[in-house]
Each structure stands twice: as structure tokens, then as C-alpha cells.
């Protein structure tokens, strides 16, 4: 929509990035800090960014880090003192105790997670509403807000109402976060708000329940279910966040790589063995695994692995005039390459069989 007019560019000077200690948060902060048109990037999070060999500054580049919880009054001070004009809110924790790729681990179970996600966003938006300098707010959400249901349309557009409102965890938090963002947008129509609903992130640096699932030596699946999955590569996610942070793109947008993969396709691409189990057994096993903190499997992950989800991304492509570089399949393959590549056994077996039969 709006391109870089000089007047606007002079506006974008100080960017606040929340959840900067998460993988995506750190990458967005670094990318924005490298932009000469942006004077300052302030990163906030509850924990400092992971720093290899103690070189604090090197990790985030020019980004100044402030250790502030979203729900503390210090945040208001940060926004006011620094004359922040763009807020990029990435601090959405995807699992209790888990280090969801958005924010740092706010270990302490579901209530702490909800507090962090929902109350944190409320506080942040309250601070933005008070601020006279904030002109643009970009919020990271998830396509999980659509739920996963056999009764829903096959492909969700931004206007689709979820058939069943999610009752659990992450998706519910994201739904509530979006409600507050809509409220904020109503009260401050002069501020450009962008809500980005990301499909499951994939890539070498992503650590999420789904990437941990695909890293297991043996993959349990739900017998009789082959869900459609969609991924967005971390590079594309960072690119979208930076583009929406630099220019006005008001509205709600789905973000996903082109195409879909079936879970069975993903599993075959990993080359790992599968154990299909009936859904009650799957629930039991994942419950045990969750209890033993082996894999963090929430009910909504289970729904995703049963019914899947696909979203329409034409609105984003039309608004940004840009398409993700990685398709869903390419994002998954890149993730697999970073984890030692796909297992070659099944392909080898077919090749051997082909040689055996044709060479007889």
C-alpha cells in the first residue's frame, strides 16, 4: 500500500521489539538495526538474549536490550523515554515452560504463559495507547486461531470465523490477544495496526513443538488421519515482520509458504519410521510424553496432527506485492537439511529393489 515516502521514512526511527530473546525476535531486531533508516532498535524481553561466548553486543548488533517484563510499569517508561514510534510485538509464548520461538521461556506452567501472552499484550497496548509517538504496531499471531476441525472450510481466509473456538492454550491466548489488538485499533485509528497470523514456523533455527516432533527418532501419528500442514520459513517470517515494521500495512494477514504438505509426506521426507496409533492411544502416549517433559504436546497440537489446517495467503501477497521465498515443502526440506538431512533408507530400499528386479 504505502511505499517509502520521505515523510514516512523520517517517522520510522525508533523501533521496539518485544520477545527479542526468541529466535525470530532476535533476527528481526538485527535486520531492523541494519537498516540505515532506523535510528534505534530497542529489544525487550524477560530474559537476556542467549549470547555465545559472552559477547553480549555482538548477538543483537546495534540493538539495545532492556530486560523488562511486558506487564511491568518499566515498559511504559521505555516507550515514553525513547520516543518509540513502531512496536513489533513478537512475545507470544507457544507452550508452558517451552521456549516457543517467540519469546523467552517464562517457565511456570499454563497460568504464567497466559499471564505473559494475554496480560502482557494488554499492558503493552495500554502503553501504546497512552503514547503520543507510537504510529505503527505489528503483532505476531498464529493461524492456530482458526483451530483444526473436520467441520471447518478446507482453506481459511482472514475473514473465516473459527467453527469451534479454541479452549486451550496457545490458540486461545492468540485469539484473546487479537481481540485486544482490534480494540486498540478501534480506539487509536490513527495508529496503523498489523496482525500477522503465521503458519507453523520451519527452519534451521526454529525450536517449536512441531520441529521437536519432527526431530524425534520415531514419529507417532494418529491412525486414519493425514492432516494438511503449512509452514512458513523463518527467513520469510523475518522478512514479513521487517516489511510491516517499515511501512504501513494495516489489517490482518495470513502468512504461510505456498502449497501444503500432508503429514504423511512430511514423515516420508524425514525417512523416519512411523507408528500410527488410534487417537485414544495417541492421546495417552502424548500425555505421558508431556508429563515426562519429553515432547511438549498440547491438545491443539493433537488437533493439528489429526485435522490439519491450511490458510489462504492472497491478501498478504496483494498487500506487500511479495511472496514468501520458501514454499511449505521448501521450508520443510530446509529444516530437514539443517537436522542432518532426510533418512535415505526408504529411497535406498526402492532403488535396491529396482536394481534387483530390472537387473535380473
Amino acid at each position, binding site marked *: 500500500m504505502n511505499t517509502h515516502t520521505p515523510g514516512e521514512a523520517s517517522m520510522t526511527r525508533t523501533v521496539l521489539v518485544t520477545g527479542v530473546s526468541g529466535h525470530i525476535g532476535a533476527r528481526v531486531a538485527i535486520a531492523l538495526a541494519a537498516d540505515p533508516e532506523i535510528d534505534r532498535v530497542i529489544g525487550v524481553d524477560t530474559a537476556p538474549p542467549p549470547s555465545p561466548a559472552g559477547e553480549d553486543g555482538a548477538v543483537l548488533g546495534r540493538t539495545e536490550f532492556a530486560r523488562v517484563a511486558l506487564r511491568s510499569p518499566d515498559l511504559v517508561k521505555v516507550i515514553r523515554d525513547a520516543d518509540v514510534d513502531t512496536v513489533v510485538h513478537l512475545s507470544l509464548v507457544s507452550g508452558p515452560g517451552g521456549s516457543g520461538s517467540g519469546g523467552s521461556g517464562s517457565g511456570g506452567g499454563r497460568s504464567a504463559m497466559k499471564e505473559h501472552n494475554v496480560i502482557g499484550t494488554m499492558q503493552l497496548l495500554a502503553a501504546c495507547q497512552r503514547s503520543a509517538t507510537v504510529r505503527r504496531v505489528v503483532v505476531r499471531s498464529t493461524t492456530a486461531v482458526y483451530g483444526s476441525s473436520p467441520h471447518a472450510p*478446507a482453506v481459511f481466509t482472514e475473514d473465516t470465523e473459527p467453527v469451534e473456538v479454541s479452549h486451550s492454550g496457545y490458540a486461545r491466548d492468540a485469539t484473546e490477544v487479537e481481540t485486544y489488538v482490534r480494540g486498540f485499533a478501534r480506539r487509536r485509528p490513527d495508529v496503523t495496526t498489523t496482525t500477522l497470523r503465521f503458519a507453523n514456523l520451519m527452519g534451521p533455527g526454529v525450536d517449536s513443538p512441531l520441529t521437536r516432533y519432527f526431530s524425534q527418532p520415531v514419529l507417532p501419528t494418529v491412525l486414519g488421519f493425514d492432516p494438511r500442514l503449512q509452514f512458513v520459513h523463518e527467513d520469510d517470517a523475518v522478512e514479513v515482520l521487517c516489511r510491516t515494521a517499515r511501512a504501513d500495512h494495516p489489517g490482518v494477514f495470513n502468512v504461510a509458504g505456498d502449497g501444503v504438505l500432508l503429514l504423511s509426506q512430511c514423515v516420508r521426507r524425514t525417512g523416519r519410521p512411523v507408528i500410527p496409533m488410534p487417537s485414544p492411544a495417541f492421546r495417552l502416549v502424548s500425555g505421558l510424553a508431556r508429563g515426562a517433559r519429553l515432547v511438549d504436546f498440547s491438545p491443539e497440537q493433537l488437533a493439528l496432527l489429526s485435522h490439519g489446517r491450511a490458510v489462504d495467503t492472497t491478501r498478504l501477497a496483494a498487500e506487500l506485492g511479495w511472496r514468501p521465498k520458501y514454499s511449505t515443502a521448501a521450508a520443510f526440506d530446509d529444516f530437514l537439511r539443517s537436522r542432518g538431512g532426510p533418512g535415505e533408507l526408504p529411497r535406498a530400499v526402492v532403488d535396491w529393489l529396482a536394481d534387483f528386479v530390472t537387473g535380473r
Partner: protein
Amino acid sequence: MDDFQGRRTDGSTADQRLAELFAFLRRRVTGEYEIDEFGFDPELNEKVLLEALRPLYRHWFRTETLGLGNVPAGSGALIVANHSGTLPVDALMLQVAVHDELGRPLRLLGAHLVYQLPVLGHLARKSGHTLACPEDADRLLRKGEVVGVFPEGFKGIGKPFSERYRLQRFGRGGFVASAIRAGVPIVPCAIVGAEEIYPKIGDIPSLARLLGLPYLPITPLFPWLGPLGLLPLPSKWLIEFGEPIRTDEYAPEEADDPMLVFDLTDHIRETMQRQLDALRLRRGPAFPPIVM
């Protein structure tokens, strides 16, 4: 014969066929194949799922098709068909007919029940079908697909044998609204033969309710012969595609005019009933005289 079979007979050597088979297997085990956003897997559909249905279509029901020219080639269309037979075998046969005779995949809009069930729901998606909802119908028609719908739903497929070839009430006409929005023609389609495959002479409503099914049929062979009772009777089938009904003369907004939608729905239903009666006469007895 379709081209899959055709390719086999013309010239390709056994080695080539074997190489093709292994290339197929390699793609399948490594997941290197494409599906669309609805979960449609064209390769699996053509090489495995339809292949399993073809003997039933060709040899068991000896299906004949009429009016193939009434389905537009290369653009979107909504095929509206009568539904019967206790189990949706007519949907599968229509799918084979559209694929093999017209060379187009048929994208059916199915009942919620199908998508709740494990295996079946996901198999339906792989073979190109999706849930009957306006969003999916609109999306498929906009993409120029041939979409199929059975507006009678369970009322049609689960009706007793005594009501055979009597069209039941057509839902709410949502399919007409979708066709108007997309501006695609509606092709009325009569299927004769499906009524006789499992003649439903009774029902066990209490057990059906217990199992969460719309009905639990009693046929001359089921449940008396157990799984053997699931064998469809070898009736003679005719599938006729009728004169397309144009919707592009309406503005897309007129899809929201209930009166127009009702009138068009009624018109289509009457057309189909006439078409069905004529086609039934044309077919004659369902079974050769020796059987009946």
C-alpha cells in the same frame, strides 16, 4: 479405455513400465509429490484409488455415459446429481465417469459425517473431495474445477427402495447460490442404476442412533449375509449429463436473493426428475431377465 490403460497397450516395453512403476514408488516413499490445498493427491487418485473402482464401473455395473458434451471443457461447472443406493457408490462412479470420460477430476462436496470418520475423511480429501460448505464450493468453482454435489443428501441416499427414482427435497439451495456467485453453469445429472445396488427394505433407527449414523439399512442381503451382504447388486447403470443451466446472466450479488435461489432450485429439481424418468425408461430392467 482411458489413457492409463491405453498407454500400456501401445508399444511401451515391460522394462519401461517397470521403470515407471519404480519411479512412482520412489516418489511415494520419499514424499516427493504434489497435493493441492484441499489435500487432493492427483497421482494417488488416478493410479490407485480410481484404478480400484474401474472394474466396478466397467464390468460390474457396465456403466454408460450420455451427454458428455454438456460439461464445459476446461472451465468451472457444478454437476448436480441425484443420490441413492444406501452407500455412496454413485458418488464414486460419477467420479470415475468424469475423470475417465471427460478427463477432469471431480471435486465432490461431501457430508460432515464423512470428514469426521478416520481413514474415510482423509481418503476423500486425497481423492479430491471436500466438505459441503459455501467457502469450499466457492473456492473450487473460482479455480475452474468441476464440482459435484448431491443436494438431496442423506434424504436421497437413505430413502427406502419403494421410493426409488423419486427425488427428495433439495437442501437449502446453497449450491445454486455458489454457482451464481462463480457464474458457472449448473449441469443436471441423472444417475440410473444406483437405486438397485442395495435395495433398502428396512431400517434399524435405534441402532443407527446409537452408532451416530443417519440410518442403518436392512437390504435383501444385509445384515443376513454379513460382509457378503455389502456386495452391491450388479445393476445396469446409465449416467446422463443434461443441458447446462446458465447462471452467468445473474449478477453475483443475486446469489443473496432467496427467491431467485428457490426458483432456480425448483427448476433444476423438476428438470432432473424428468431427466431421471426418461433415463430410467431408456435403461429398461435393472437386471438381465435371468436374475430377476
